[in-house]
């Protein structure tokens, strides 16, 4: 792994957090191009596809939300690099434990985008097949998915198998007890776990400075006795490298790693949020040059990895793949109450059968 001086980092408030974070795209141009050329070209294009796949989903979901065709939606615009970089660094045997912020990472495991979109539309058909994809259902209460990731990883070790588990969290989530308990357990049990904290510097209206008194979340790793790594969260290549290294270490019996992906929340917290109430939106705009799809496009072209036309074709292809999703999910029939009731237990107790749902028919 190469530590390199940042060149294209913004001057926005909070940009100093990127100092010392592992980066490839942020290296001086000549070095950046050389580093990129050291990565096999098919891998770079895979990562690029991953980015564009996540972006296409997010774009579509935001549009559908504005049209009132899905419910409240947690956009992740700007966080595609850490999500695609992390998930694509794993094998299909490895488990992923997402939060509401990683609503579409299942599509990086071959799940059709209709599925997570159905979930955001409030349809139970949106619960994807967890065991086939080895991606857990998204967890809404922050940090609660991390102990699950640790347990899965621990299970791999107990079984003598070499897969690992990766859990996502936000900067705000690191203030929850579950974060600390998960980190500690992972370290004590030598679980092959990777905890990726996307430090987008905001938890709704709460800035990172009001969340924790350490400036580097990765420093918290020392308290658990595990390595903490900082990476440029807008850099899909760097994220891929850092998570690959953590996964290799975990597979070899080296235990867990805490990864801090430094970025910035470019958009609102979610579609019900109004950031102008609590933050300087000009500062947020100053981070726009780091937006990962455009940033990666520029770098791949500059390094001669692909032509602008080739990259545009990838973006186009994925945008097209997502174009009709609105109609696709609307064509899925709603579930009846009885169908829903059949998904709580197996076997279904009488309380959720026809009689239980309706109450007594005669007195």
């Amino acid at each position, binding site marked *: 792994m190469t530590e390199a001086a940042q060149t294209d980092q913004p001057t926005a408030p909070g940009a100093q957090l990127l100092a010392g974070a592992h980066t490839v795209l942020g290296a001086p141009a000549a070095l950046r191009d050389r580093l990129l050329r050291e990565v096999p070209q098919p891998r770079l294009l895979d990562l690029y596809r991953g980015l564009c796949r996540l972006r296409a989903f997010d774009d579509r979901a935001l549009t559908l939300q504005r049209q009132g065709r899905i*419910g409240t939606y947690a956009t992740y615009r700007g966080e595609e690099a850490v999500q695609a970089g992390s998930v694509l660094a794993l094998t299909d045997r490895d488990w992923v434990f997402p939060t509401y912020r990683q609503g579409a990472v299942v599509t990086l495991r071959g799940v059709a985008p209709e599925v997570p979109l159905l979930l955001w539309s409030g349809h139970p058909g949106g619960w994807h097949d967890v065991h086939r994809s080895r991606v857990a259902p998204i967890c809404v209460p922050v940090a609660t998915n991390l102990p699950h990731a640790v347990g899965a990883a621990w299970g791999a070790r107990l079984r003598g198998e070499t897969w690992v588990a990766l859990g996502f969290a936000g900067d705000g989530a690191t*203030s929850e*007890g579950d974060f600390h308990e998960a980190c500690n357990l992972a370290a004590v049990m030598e679980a092959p776990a990777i905890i990726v904290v996307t430090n987008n510097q905001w938890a*709704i*209206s709460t800035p990172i400075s009001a969340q924790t008194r350490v400036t580097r979340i990765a420093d918290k790793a020392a308290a658990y006795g595990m390595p903490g790594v900082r990476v440029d969260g807008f850099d899909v290549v760097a994220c891929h490298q850092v998570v690959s290294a953590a996964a290799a270490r975990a597979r070899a019996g080296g235990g867990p790693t805490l990864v801090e992906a430094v970025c910035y929340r470019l958009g609102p917290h979610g579609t019900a949020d109004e950031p102008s109430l609590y933050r300087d939106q000009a500062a947020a705009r100053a981070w726009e040059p780091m937006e990962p799809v455009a940033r990666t496009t520029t770098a791949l072209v500059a390094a001669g990895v692909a032509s602008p036309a080739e990259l545009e074709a990838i973006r186009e292809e994925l945008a097209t793949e997502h174009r009709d999703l609105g109609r696709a999910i609307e064509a899925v029939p*709603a579930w009846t*109450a009885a169908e829903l009731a059949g998904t709580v237990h197996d076997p279904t107790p009488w309380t959720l059968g026809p009689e239980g*749902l309706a109450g007594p028919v005669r007195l």
Partner: protein
Amino acid sequence: MTEATLVDAINRTLDQALADDPRVLLLGEDIGRNGGVFRVTAGLQARHGAERVIDTPLSEAGFVGAAIGLCLAGFRPVVEIQFDAFVYPAFEQLVSHAARFRWRTAGRYGLPMVVRLPYGGGTRAPELHSDSPETLFSHVPGLRVVAPSDPAGAGPLLLAAIACEDPVVFMEPKRLYRRGRQPVPERVTPAPLDRAVTVRPGRDLTLVAHGAMVEVAVAAAERLAEDGAAVGVLDLRSLYPLDRDALVEAATETGRVLVIHEAPRHCGLGAEIAALLQEYAADRLLAPVLRVAGADMPFPLLRNEDDYLPGCAAVVERAHLLLDY
């Protein structure tokens, strides 16, 4: 008098409590500059300062537990939980500690803290933003649990909760937050913390409800009136303790009681009310006590919300079963 929504009414009452008593503190996630995700605390930090309207880290167990310590330090904390289900990380602090403090001091000292909990469905929100966990708290000895159902009732009940020397879980039916306006006085005065309110008198049947279900009960009563039935509505307001006298009085007046709640049926408040009426008013009941409640399932994703939520039609249907008994 001013016209206020439920959000306004709670905001004004918090403002008054902060102005009147320097021991009152508000704490919670995003309640300061952002004014809370529902804007219930909008403007309060600007008016009372960031030392009294406090944005906490994302740490429910931490700040609910800290509220206990703040009480010991002489404050009267009012804690906002952002959404119903996010109280679960703080459950231990409420159950194992807040609820037991008076007990643990041999009755000497209470903890004058309030946990404000926006709850319930019908807002087309994502998973775990629509729970009705009132029974989890009403089952815990040492906690009081209250729920207003309208702007006019919310302020007096909240003020009483803040004045209470024991911990109170104040359940806010969030689907009513902006539902309509009612006149509220410039200065709020506290209401009794443990009294139900008769929203509508009846002769043939009493609908018992709380929070957002009061509205459903009133709509059903109006519909039933078209069929010639005089149906009353009792708004519980206090979920622990239950207003036994008001319930027995209703049973005495009508002999027929239908309990409506959004929380799952099993071990819900309906079960407790039915048992209580068996114990104290069996001879006055003309029919079994029935329930219209949520199914024993997690609150559904938004497309199935209406399959879950007790609605007017279901209440009318059950009411006829009772009226015909």
